[in-house]
């Protein structure tokens, strides 16, 4: 036990001596000019860092823009997308049909009441049933909408413009 204690004390004393000896160890003399040059170099690197990063980012942005343009052009070519004029025409074709007129009351039906609820039912009517159209016996149809009351009876009718044109085109 006392041996361990004396070992501990001896080592402590030796470490204290080593500490003292190390205190006397000198670092190499300061080369102030070299040190200042190192500071300037580090500052230059630090400043160049963000500038280089900005340039790098700009290069990437330009490359991305070129990529987007090329991809767009390729998509237009591959998908055969039409120019804007044709697109507008296509949109017009796909637009909902324009109605010729408001609903016309049917002669034999009860009156339309503003507070009552009605359903709109689209039907295709054979031209043969409309004796008014010349040549209707040849089997054409016309599309119309019926206004149907809660009792199931039709209250009004209107013909769609597209079908009107279709009808006129029929031989």
């Amino acid at each position, binding site marked *: 036990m006392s041996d361990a204690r004396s070992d501990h004390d001896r080592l402590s004393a030796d*470490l204290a001596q080593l500490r003292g*000896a190390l205190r006397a160890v000198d670092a190499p003399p300061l080369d102030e000019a070299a040190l200042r040059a190192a500071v300037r170099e580090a500052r230059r690197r630090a400043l160049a860092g963000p500038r280089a990063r900005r340039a790098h980012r700009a290069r990437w942005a330009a490359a991305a823009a070129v990529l987007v343009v090329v991809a767009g052009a390729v998509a237009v070519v591959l998908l055969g997308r039409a120019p804007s004029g044709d697109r507008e025409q296509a949109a017009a074709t796909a637009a909902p049909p324009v109605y010729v007129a408001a609903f016309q009351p049917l002669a034999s039906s009860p009156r339309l009441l503003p507070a009552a609820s009605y359903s709109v039912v689209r039907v295709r009517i054979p031209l043969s049933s409309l004796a008014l159209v010349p040549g209707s016996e040849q089997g054409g149809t016309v599309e119309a909408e019926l206004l149907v009351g809660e009792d199931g009876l039709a209250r009004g009718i209107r013909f769609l413009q597209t079908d009107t044109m279709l009808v006129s085109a029929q031989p």
Partner: protein
Amino acid sequence: MLKTESRNEDGVDARLLADVAAGVEDAFVELYRRRQRDVYRFAFAMARSRSFAQDVMQEVFINVLENASRFDANKGSVRAWLFGCARHVVLNRLRLERRWTDDMPAATAEFDHDERLFTDQRIERLHAALARLPVEYREALVLAELEELSYAETAAVLGCPIGTVRSRLHRGRALLTAMLDEQNAAAAPVETSLQTREVCS
């Protein structure tokens, strides 16, 4: 009184480091002048080589230039922060050194240990034994015993709990004592035989 002085020193170092972070050249030169010996001595104590210590010192102060803004005064003094930087550099270099010297015989595997710096042979042997300790014990002993950092500061530099510092110091001291005893035992018969030869002649 000593504590107050140390606190004032810390304050000066912290102000200089803040100026270094702001790019003030003179502040860096002044900080270097004040703390280069600490860093050099730590590296020298760890590796027992002047050239190694000089390289470490240069690398540490380059790191200081680049990372001065990362210093957090709440985590410890500038001196302790510098020891932390120096420790990283030392460990990296030791690792590299070991990689390069793996094929060499064990006796020459680490550094140029022939440097004679201390006239007292006993101190020379103690330093040589210290440089052969496993790194975790060596760095704890150098920081706490030779650089006289507190246990808390040593723990902060090593990034481990205070209890670990204590146990590493205890174990390091035990290993050091055993190594020195071994050296003494090996040296004793040589001395005896030399004496015998002198008597005979």
